[in-house]
């Protein structure tokens, strides 16, 4: 088990190296740089070129890459060109915000998906199943950013049940109960919007697993033992059907990252997704590469987590 986890973790190293090279090269290939927006009548283009030379932006990419990775290994992501503060400082609070938003979204989407998936699978082809399947089709067809806008308009502006931007009410002392509640209150609407619309995959996956497991021979064996229908469902069908859902978990995280880019911008939630979009428009390379790298690391960790969870819950792939 530990050997497997260790080996699985070691595989991550080459993955990370390839990922960092890709991110760096792609960022370099983007047209323009942090200074190209500064061109104006009172700015001397020669001065800009001098700064570029000074910053080392004209060096070959591998030298720049070397400097960048060297810094990261020492915990230094460089300074933001635009905000003139270290990137790590800029990311610090936002990564925490994004983390809690993801956790809330995950919890909400499983809270929605598991009961719906179970109902849909257990009573397949009934009206309940059709209703739930209809919902997942709508979820599948609706773009997240449009749905989020509707939610924001309805619950944020029209009904005013939820705040429309930010991650906390200004002026609260961090660490107090009010502060925590305010944080929770702010992330509820974005989390709910994402959960409602992206959970269809898990619902349908769980439904199909249950429908599939229901027809397995060992279910007949369980009935032949004298197990009641509810026991057959809880002990035999559900346990076997939740396995792939656990494996799906890492993929879920990757999905969330994609979603957070829209959601954080729409809800004005100061997280990593918002920062990423900002840094692209401002050509703030150091911030851009750092956020993208962190998103990439999160995806790789998600996949690792999936593998480890699966190896714990499924005895057939448990490695001794």
């Amino acid at each position: 088990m530990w050997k497997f986890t260790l080996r699985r973790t070691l595989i991550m190293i080459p993955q990370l190296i390839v990922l960092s090279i890709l991110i760096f090269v792609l960022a370099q290939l983007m047209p323009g740089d942090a200074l190209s927006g500064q061109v104006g009548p009172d700015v001397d283009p020669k001065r800009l070129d001098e700064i570029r030379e000074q910053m080392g932006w004209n060096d070959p990419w591998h030298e720049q890459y070397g400097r960048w990775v060297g810094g990261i290994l020492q915990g230094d992501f460089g300074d933001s060109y635009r905000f003139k503060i270290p990137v790590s400082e800029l990311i610090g609070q936002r990564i925490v915000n994004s983390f809690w938003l993801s956790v809330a979204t995950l919890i909400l989407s499983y809270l929605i998906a598991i009961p719906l998936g179970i109902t849909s699978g257990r009573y397949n082809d009934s009206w309940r199943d059709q209703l739930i399947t209809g919902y997942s089709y709508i979820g599948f067809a609706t773009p997240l950013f449009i749905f989020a806008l509707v939610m924001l308009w309805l619950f944020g502006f029209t009904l005013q049940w939820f705040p429309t931007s930010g991650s906390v009410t200004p002026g609260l002392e961090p660490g107090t109960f009010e502060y925590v509640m305010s944080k929770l209150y702010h992330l509820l609407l974005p989390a709910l919007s994402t959960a409602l619309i992206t959970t269809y995959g898990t619902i349908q996956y769980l439904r199909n697993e249950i429908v599939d497991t229901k027809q397995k021979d060992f279910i007949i064996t369980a009935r032949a033992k004298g197990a009641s229908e509810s026991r057959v469902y809880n002990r035999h069908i559900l346990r076997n059907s939740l396995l792939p859902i656990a494996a799906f978990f890492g993929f879920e995280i990757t999905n969330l990252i994609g979603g957070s880019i829209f959601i954080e911008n729409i809800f004005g939630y100061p997280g990593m997704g918002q920062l990423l979009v900002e840094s692209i428009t401002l050509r703030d390379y150091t911030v851009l590469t750092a956020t993208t790298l962190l998103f990439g690391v999160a995806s790789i960790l998600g996949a690792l987590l999936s593998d480890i969870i699966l190896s714990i819950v499924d005895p057939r792939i448990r490695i001794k």
Partner: protein
Amino acid sequence: MAEKLLDIKNLTTSFRIKDDYHAAVDNLSLTVNKNEVLAIVGESGCGKSALAFSIMGLHTRAKIEGDILYKGNNIAKMSPSELNKVRGNDLGMIFQDPLTSLNPLMEVGEQIGETLYLHNKNMSKNARREKVLDLLNKVGIPRAEHVINQFPHELSGGMRQRVMIAMAIANKPELLIADEPTTALDVTIQSQILDLINKLKDEMDSGIVLITHDLGVVAEMADRVAVMYAGQIVEVADVKTLFESPLHPYTRSLLNSVPNANTEQDELHVIQGIVPSLQNLPREGCRFGARIPWIDESAHEKHPELKEVAPGHQVRCTCYKHFSFPDESKEEQHVLS
């Protein structure tokens, strides 16, 4: 007279295909006595397994008519909770494929223990574990202490079938239904499993319904044999009579299609045609008639019923009196080829 353990009366098990119900088991009556091995033989698709599932009440979508009396209680009319008290306790079932019939995510001990738990909730955990170990030893599993915590995929096919048997006999059922228990196993393991079932039968003195298409298994295990064709029983006899003087054309064709080690045969008998599918089953006249076309129609009855021809020996239809193998035509074919 032997005690009747199971008395099936006019059982019809039908499945819905499109909008009609089609009987896979058609108006079948059968008894199983205490301490008896009753073998049910027939081709694939003749309704053997549908019959076994009916006895256990395992059909979820079939329409079941008629009575299945187990010691006077009608299984066919039981509510789910009544049924769950009987299944696993009075009735045990061994399935065909031990590979798929065990839950892949449950330890072997837990799966056997579940049968015990379901019918005796007061048993302590330790007592249950002891009992499971005892059962594993009984079915001949070496290193039971180790196997009890293993998962099905860690065991060989034969071992898994032994686990399956341990599960079926956990509560000493009085009637054991074995649905092709050796079909998925290789030959050496087959005979071990059959020996085991034989041994357990003597120990538990329960009745066994053995469903199989293997006549070798029948000869080795059975006391009485029921031959099934297209949802009906065409012949019932004790095993000796059946092998020595089979009457029904289907029984004779079956026996004739088994290679015999003692006599030299050039060619095995092949029964013409195929088993008709459920929708195309002839519901009138002799159902086997279509597969012995060289026998004149007048030989068959219009409404063939099982008739006793000797004590304990029943045959359906009158065609057996006029039946012979078309050996002449067979020889012709031989010359041609």
